[in-house]
């Protein structure tokens, strides 16, 4: 859905994804690390989209299979995942989120304006229009 917002405001919006795996969702953390491994191989967003379609099937075998489906180097991906190469990076995102008061997912900041939970696309359109108007006034 946010991809649609980016398309509707070409050149005006950028999206930054931050990991915030919740402790009571056991598959969330390995999925987050796996997406970063896919990112290291150049396919973060494709893998990210695949995970949302595939949830909650996040066994180790599932995660590797999704990488294979995208044509990623299976050995390199598996090595990344097994080594926990992005564990600390995910921890870092969680710490940054907590510092910002994030407690649940998804939480969005639109030029700093917090939006908690899922929202219809109209709400994002309005938030972007408001932020553009604020930016134009500066």
């Amino acid at each position, binding site marked *: 859905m*946010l*991809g649609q*917002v*980016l398309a509707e*405001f070409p*050149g*005006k*919006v*950028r*999206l*930054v*994804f*931050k*990991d*915030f*795996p*919740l402790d009571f*969702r056991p*598959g*969330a953390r390995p*999925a*987050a690390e796996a*997406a*970063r491994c896919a*990112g*290291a*191989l*150049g396919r*973060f*967003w494709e893998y*990210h989209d695949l*995970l*949302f379609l595939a*949830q*909650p099937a*996040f066994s180790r075998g599932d995660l590797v299979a999704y990488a294979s489906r995208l044509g990623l180097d299976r050995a390199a991906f598996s090595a990344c995942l097994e080594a926990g190469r992005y564990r600390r*990076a995910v921890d*870092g*995102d969680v710490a*940054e*989120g907590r*510092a*910002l*008061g*994030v407690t649940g*997912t*998804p*939480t*969005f*900041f*639109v*030029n*700093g*304006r*917090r939006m908690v939970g899922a929202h219809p696309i109209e709400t994002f359109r309005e938030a*972007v229009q408001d*932020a*553009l108007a*604020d*930016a134009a006034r500066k």
Partner: protein
Amino acid sequence: MTRRLALVALAIGLWSAACGAQTETPGSATVTVDAAMVKGAAEAPVTIVEFSDYQ
């Protein structure tokens, strides 16, 4: 292929209804940005930061 941008700071102001404050204000914070996890124009005037998980 993907490079980690070390501490490329993105200021996130904790939104204030009173002044619309965004950056470098008391209560603001910075987040690191991984180049692989960003979409859209680098110079875009609006940044959406999404904290999420996959479940």
